[in-house]
Every structure is written in C-alpha cells, then in structure tokens.
C-alpha cells in the first residue's frame, strides 16, 4: 500500500509538471470588429453609423493537437451582426500543419469557394516585455507586420506549447491567445480553453473548393481590387489573413 502511494505521489508530481504545458485542446476566440471605424469618415459613413452596431462580435474556435490545428467560425452575436450579410466567410476554414510548415485553407473569395495551399507565412515577430492575462494565462506581447505594412499585435503564452494562433498566425514560442490588428479594426481574444471532450478528429485539411496556390490567388485579387482604394486593401487582408 505504501509502495502504491509512493508511486502515485511520484506520478502525480510528474502529472502536475506535465499538465502545466498544454499540447492539445480547443480555444474559443471572441472576435470584435469596430464597424464604425471600418466605414471611415465622410458624410456617407456618418449617415450609416447611427443605424449600425458599433461593434460586431463573433466567435471562432481553434482546435489544436501538438503540431496541427483547425480554425473555424462557431457563432455570432445576432444583435451586433454587421449589415453586409454573410458573404460565405463563415464557412472559411484554416488548417495548419506547423511541423511541415504548410497550410490548407477553405476560403470564400468573392462568393466562390477555393482551397488554398501554401507554406505558412513567416512573420518577423518583435518580442516585447509587456504582458497581460488572457483567459487565465499570462501572455507576452509580440509585434509583427503582415502584408508589408499591417501591424499585428499578438499576445502569446508559453504555457501552451503549440506555436499556433487564430487563422494562420504562428511562429511564437507558444500559443497566441490575443490579437489586435488596428488597421482591420478588429481584435481576437481567447475567451476559454477546453481540454476535455474536444473532438480532435476534425483537424483535417478541408477539400471542398477550387484548388489554388494562395500566393497566386493573392496576386489576382490584388490586381482585381487595385481600383477599390482602401476597400480593396481590406478585402485582400480579410481574404488572405
């Protein structure tokens, strides 16, 4: 009996040590977009602002298992939904394979569904010594630049030992639990982490849609939207983030 207790003690100690570092689970992100800021200034925008909720909130889930993850839409707050309607982006799926450095995404691009594949975008993260708590985890802030000029503020925790995050954001020494992209007027902040009862079978690459290399399609979209001004830029960022 004493012997068993001793083993249990050792095991439990090891368990504590091991469980501190999470390698699989499901994180739910609350995604908030400031509709008023996205509309910009001007008399047209002013006219709409009174009629549109200032902030739209929706929830996305990232299911991850060591070196793979899948990120999908879950639900939205109907009261705050934006008036532009669902353009198919709610069916978007991001599948990331971190160890092989590649992604497979199902994306709605101007109403058509594509399967985009490419290697994961390398982001130069600048590490800061600021930190904040998100969903009970202490997170460190890092700053990156996407699409040449779009600043991304990310908060990652090293308690989750998977270098992933919402969408295809990755490359930090831990899981990204919070993101802000001011120029997209949006933030992604983890609201909960689930470890038990998570369906890991769904972490598979999507297959439904026209197959295309992401960088190739991005070139086409940039060309097609170049006359749209800031709307075109936002469209590119929204599609290829």
């Amino acid at each position: 009996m004493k012997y068993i207790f001793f083993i249990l003690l050792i095991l439990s100690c090891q368990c504590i040590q091991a469980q501190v570092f999470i390698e699989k689970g499901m994180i739910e992100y609350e995604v908030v977009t400031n509709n008023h800021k996205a509309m910009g200034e001007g008399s047209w925008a002013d006219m709409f602002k009174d009629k549109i909720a200032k902030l739209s909130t929706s929830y996305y889930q990232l299911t991850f298992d060591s070196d793979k993850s899948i990120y999908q839409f879950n639900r939205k707050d109907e009261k705050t939904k934006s008036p532009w309607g669902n353009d198919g982006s709610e069916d978007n799926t991001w599948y990331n394979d971190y160890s092989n450095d590649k992604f497979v995404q199902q994306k709605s691009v101007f109403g058509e569904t594509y399967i985009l594949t490419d290697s994961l975008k390398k982001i130069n993260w600048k590490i800061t010594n600021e930190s904040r708590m998100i969903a009970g985890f202490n997170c460190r802030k890092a700053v990156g630049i996407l699409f040449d000029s779009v600043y991304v503020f990310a908060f990652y925790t090293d308690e989750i030992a998977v270098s992933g995050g919402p969408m295809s954001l990755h490359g930090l020494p831990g899981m990204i639990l919070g993101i802000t992209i001011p120029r997209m007027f949006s933030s992604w902040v983890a609201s909960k982490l689930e470890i038990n009862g998570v369906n890991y079978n769904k972490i598979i690459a999507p297959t439904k849609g026209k197959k295309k290399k992401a960088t190739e399609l991005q070139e086409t979209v940039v060309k097609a939207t170049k006359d749209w001004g800031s709307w075109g830029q936002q469209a590119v960022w929204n599609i290829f983030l």
Partner: protein
Amino acid sequence: MPKLFTLLIITLLFSIKLQAQTIAVSGSVADTAENKAVQNAVVALLYSKDSILYKFTRTDASGKYTFKNLKAGTYILMTTHPYFGDVVLNLDLKDAQTEIPSVSLTSKSKLLSEVIIKSGTPIKIKGDTTVYTADSFKVRAGANVEELLKKLPGIQVDKDGKITAMGEQVKKVLVDGEEFFGDDPGIATKNLRADIVKEVEVFDKKSDQAAFTGIDDGVKDKTINLKLKDNAKKGYFGKAEAGTDFTNYYNNSIMANAFKGKRKLAAYGIMSNTGQTNLDWQDNQNYGGSSGMTTEMMDGGGIMITSEGDGDSYYNGQGGIPTNWNAGLHYSNKFNNGKQTLNSGYKYSKVNSPGEERTYTTNFIGDSSFTSSKISNAFSSKVKQSLNVSFETNIDSANSLKFTAKGNLNQTKSISNYDLESLNAKSLLINSSTRKTSGIVDNSSLNSTLLWKHKFKKLARTLTVNLNYNLTNSKTDNYLYSENDYFTDGVPYQNDTTDQESIKDNNSNSLTTNITYTEPLAKDFFMSVMYAFSTSTTVNDWISFSKDISGKYTTQIDSLSNSFLFRQNMHKPGISFRVVKKKYNYSAGISVSNSNFKQEDITKGIIRKYNFTNFFPTASFYKKLSGYGGIRLNYNGSTTAPTLNQLQPITDNSDPLYQYIGNPDLNQSFNHSINANYNFYNVLKEKGLYSGIYGGFTQNAFVNQSTIDNTGKTIYKTVNADGNYNFGLYSGYNFKWKKPNIRVSFGPFANASRYISFVNTQKSVNTNTSYGFRFDASKQKEKKYEISINPEISWVNAKNSINSNASANYWQASVRADLEITFLKKFRFETDLNFRAKQVDPRFPAKNKFTLWNASLKRYIFKEELEASVSVNDLLNDNRGYERSFTDYRYSETFYKTLQRFWMVTLTWNFSKNGKPTGDF
C-alpha cells in the same frame, strides 16, 4: 505563485561549435534554488538590434536545449517559464570561437526613470494620469506636436520620432481619445499643430480606454492622449465661381460650409442663365444638406438608401432658357454623443422662363384627319421657398424616435399667348383661335412624419409606428381671353369669344398611420403583422366669372363653377411571412383593404358613397448563386384612386379647343406588377452578366375618352378601361479587356406596351414595341485621363388601330462620347459629344440629326485653389429644340427654343481651412 519560487537562478551552460558557416549552441536551464532541471522553459534568440524573434526552442526533461544552424551576430537570449521570472542575456555570437557570455542575473527591465516635476510647472497628476497644460509650454509658431512634447518634462523624443514618457516607450498617441490613423504614434505628433492642443495626458492605457475605442490591444501601453482645443475642430470650405461671356450669359455661384465639431452650417447662392438651376448632386451633399436622403437597415442584411426629391427643378433643355436665382441655408448638429441629431434647412429659388414653342399635330378620327398648328409665347416666374426640419433621438437602445417636417411655399406667375389653326385633310381651315392667359398660382404645403421604432429584448422582435400628416393648399387665379373661329371647309360659320376669370381653391389633408409588428417564429422564419389606416379629404372650390359691363369679372358662370369634396377612408390589415436561409429567401403575404369613398358635389347637392375591398398579395423569392450573383422574383398588386381633378364634374375650358371634363363615375384602378432578374459578377475575372424581365397590367386603368367635332374641337375625360400593359426585358454583359485595360459592356433591350383610348366612341388601341442594342467602352487612368464612348441603336414600331397613317416604323440612334485629360499638371481639358438621329420620315421634313459638342479648358493656379477656364457650349451651333412623337391616334412634332452656342470664361476660387468637400461616392 512567484513567492513560492522566490529564487530563480538559471544556469546556462554553453557549448558552441563552429560548423562551416553556421554555429550550434546548447545549454541547460535549472532552478538553482532546488538545483533541479527545468523542463519546457522557452529559450528564444532575439536579434539584439530590434528584438525580432530569430529562433526559439524548449528545454527537455533534463533542462537541456540546443540551437543548430545559427548565424553569427549579436542576440538577446531570453529564457521564460510561467512559474519563473524572465532571464534575458546578451549573446555575441561570432564567426570564430565565441566566448561563453557572462551570466547576468539582473532583470532586463529597469523601466521607471525619474520624473522631474519642477514646482510651478502646470502639471497635474490625476490618479495614474499625468496632465500637461499645453499652452504653458512655449513653442515656436507653427510648431507641431512633436516639438511640444520635447518641451514637456518627463517626455523625450529621439531623432527618429520615438517618444519615451516616464522612461517607457509610448506606443500610442490618441487624439481626443480616438486613435489617429494607424499604428505609428509619429503620424499624429508630426501632423498636428501644437497650438490646437489643449492638454497632453500621459497614462498607461486602461481597460476603459480600450472599451472606449472598442479595440482592446493590451492593457499596459504607455499612451499619450492629445486633448484638442474645442475650436480646433473648427473649419470651413467652399467655392466662389464667376462665369461670363461679357454679353448675354452668366453663371455665378458661391457656396460655403463652416463646421465646428459635429455642427455644420452651410449656405449657397446661385445666379445663372445657362441652365444651372440648382445645386448638382455633389454640391448638394456638401452645401445643401442632402435633406431628402434616408438610410434604413434591411432585415435580411443590406442597406437601403432612399432619396426623395424635394421637387427641385433641373433644366432639361425645354421650356426656353431660364434665368434663376437660388439661395439656401443648412444647419445640422448632433447632441449627447450623437444620440440626438438635428437637421434643418431653408431654400429659396426664383426661375424666370421665357418660352417659345411651335407644335404641329395630325389627328386621325375614323377615316378622316386634320392638322393643327399651335404657336405659343409664354413667360413664367416661379418662386419657391421650402423649410425642413428633422430631429432624431435614440431614447435608449430599444427606442428611437424621428420627427420630420417640411413646409413649402410656391408662387407661379405666368403669361402666355397662343395662336392655333387647324386644317382638314383637304388643307381647308376648320378652326383658328387666339388665346391670352395670365394667372397666379399659390401653393403651400406642410408634411410631417413621426416614426417610432421599438426593439424588444427578443432578437428581431420589433414594433414600428409611423404617423404622417399632410396638408396642402392651392389657390389659382387665372384670366383667359380667347377668340375662336370655326369653319366648314374653309367657310366661316361660327365664332365665339371667351373672356373669364377662374378662381380655384383646393384644400386637402390626409392622415396616415402604419403599424408593423415583427415576430421571429424561428431563427430563420419571421412573421409581420401590419395595420394601416388612412383618411384623406380634398375640397375644390372652382368659380368662374365673366366680364360685366363695367369691365370687371363679377358675373358667376354657373356651368363653369362647382364645389366638390372627395373623401377616402381606408383600413388595411395585413400579414406576411419571410423565410431567410443562407442561400435563398422568400416571402409571401397578403393585405386586405377596405376603402370608403365619399364624393359630394356640394353645388348640386349630390352625394355618392361607395366602397371597395381589395386584396394585395405580395410574393418574392431570392436565390443566391455561387460567386456574386442571384436570381430574384417579385410580384405585387396595388390600387390607385382617381384624383379629385379627374372626378369633379366641371369643364376646364382654359383651352377652348381642347377642354377637359371631370368624370364622377370613375372607379379606382388595380395594377399587377411582376419582375424577375438575374445577375452575376465575377470579381477576379472582372466580368459580369445581368438580365431581367419586367411587366405589369392594369385593370380599370385610367384612359382618355375624346369627342372631336368636325371643327376639330376636342372634349375629353378620363374613363376606366382594361387592356393596358407594359412588358420589357434588358440584359447586359460587361468585362474588362485586360491588355489595353478597357471596360466594355453591351446588351440588348426591348419593350412592348399597349394603351387604350377612345375617340368619338371608337376604341383606339396603341401598341408600341421597341428593341435595340447598346454598347459602352471606357478607359481611364486616375488623375491622367478618362475616355468613354456609348453608341446605342433601336427600332421603334408604333401601331394605331384606328388609322395606319398614325403608325410609324423607324430606327433611332445616338452616340455619346466623353473625354477628360489632365496634362502638364495644371491643365485639364474636357469635352463631350452627343449625337442623335432618327430615320427620315416624309411626315417630318424637319432636320432630325443633331450634334451637341461641348468643350472646356481649365488651368489650376496656386495648386487647386484657383481655377480659370474657358468653355464653349454647342461648338457646332447645331443644337435644336426638336421632338417628334406618336401618341394615340395622332402624331406631332414640336420646336422649342433651347440653349445653343455660347462661350464662357469662368474663374473659380476654392477656399478652405481644416476641411475639404467630400468627393463622389
């Protein structure tokens, strides 16, 4: 937690090997307090110059880690673990044998540097916020905010514009609590002038601040908030334009908009005789207040913009050449953080229109025909004043209230002279008439609406109540003198003279209530219950006087005098259901209206009451197609009640040869309309297709019944008839011809319509069909040039059942071309050409090919502040006022005076401070 692990010491053991050009590093991490290896600690290498992450790894069970393939350089080695404090070391990794860096246990962040607060300096500490009063720190005139910050104690700005406050780098600069363009704090500090800043606040960005901007991006950012002086958001913009040809033509205007925060005050004035009778669309947005526009969120997603014109006149080339004076004033403001919005405006316009017109008409009655010619000279002067106010308040998140009121006061004075002559088929005179009229019409109206919207706690459950009250009054005082001679085959047999004054006083009021309640029966299934009630009353007193011996108009003409009342009460309950799915949605509903009508001929004491019950079915269907596209189907039915003018049993003899008589037996008409359309656009391929069909037919349509005697005198009234319809289709394909970057669009269109009329008890069926093809090509390069060409051709068939001579079959074509070029930076050349032609018809010998060509050259002086331009309207002097038409059992052609060639020199001054007009949508 950290207290449990008070002492954290990590031992790093380095072994560095040089392998070709790359270096490998390995080490281990241990908790020296318990002398145990630490597993899963993150060891990261950052470039020391910018802290960008180079590589990272985690320690294994024995606390060991290895980096391979490292490049030489200077790095920061950062070791972190949730339970331990961070350790940061500098690591200089050289090509050759690198020394093991000394282990430093000092914490990297030594953040708080001293804040020196000199006594007497205007610095306040409010909680954790430091507030500097900007005016107390002297900066040179025109200095920017960056220069101001350099003067503030505790704040440093380095040569790259990086700001440090209380020893920490400032991550954010807010302007009045809002983010100022993007992420770089330098944008705000370099671009704002120091003298508009009232206070500089320095604080650690807090959560309430995050909530205020709506974007949460970290709670500990050192932040500077620039509070602006109230008058900093003050500014104005406007333009003054003077154009003249130094002899006949002028076009002058001045417009200005002064704003202060949310308050806008705009005014304009126009004086022109070149057809600029009002503000154009863009100027109306900037200076006119665009009062007629409302926006509405649709339940199914999307935004509906409605724009109701406020009856402003725009010049269409007809009715002579107007001279006009316009003025307007607009005020709008928002209160309580935008919860309340006030919009108000006043407009004045006076338009003097001299007009000359000649019309030649050929009429067919049975087998015979006659031809009339009418020459008119008229002058009218119209003064319009309007005042509008709208006030909207969001009482709370569930209730909003909007009140709008609009008042109009118009007066039209007019004088006209007509000469008319009709010849029969043998070219012998059957009538001739001269007529002079003069009169004044005074109109006033008031329209007010109150809209209350309530959102219930349950999502999508709403109640909307809309009340509308409308009051109009119209007084007409008209003098008519007319001499009419009638002939039989050129031989006079009768003549009459009319010399009368008619006074009309028309009053109407209506009250309409609409209540709509929407209930979500399921997530994607909605029910709406509607109830509408309306009551309207119109009274028209019409008295005509003939001239007495003393030359005054005092003797009432009983046959031409009548007082009449028309009242309509309607109750209309309805219900509709809507299903909204991801890929499609559809709705169906029905309303039932019960309308009670009362007509009272007050003069004769005859009352007629009747009522109608109508069903109004509606149905719609929409299916989303993959890509940007969809199919839409719609049906709806509607009724139209006759107007009082159509009903009142009195003869309008203001044109003695063409008299209208009211018909009190008229019933309301019912219109069915249906349309279906398809559209598709591929954004990436930049091509699209749209097509649609539309159609409608009317039961009990209002049509004309004419009685024409053999002197050509016509008496007509409105009667009900079935058989009117209108159907059509359109389609267009557009794409970008990629290589030359030309946008092309083309497509066919077709229309068929039928309308019924009666002439001398004979039914006249008019069938019009037309079909054609349009093409459009355009190319543009921003700020360089824009060119487009748009030809169109169509074939028209107008068929009349009474006489084939009133039918026609012809083609018509038009070409429009536009060119705008900016060159040598300061010059802009604009030209447009409009060509239209119709197939030659022996019945219309007049010229029917016209080319209207306009051009202007503009030069910018002092950037874009001053513009000078020379323009020529109708370079070829080829423009003519000419129309030809086939209607009913007659065809006609009309010649009128219109603007022809003139040139003009224009000087425009654009002025502004802190603001600029909004451009095109």
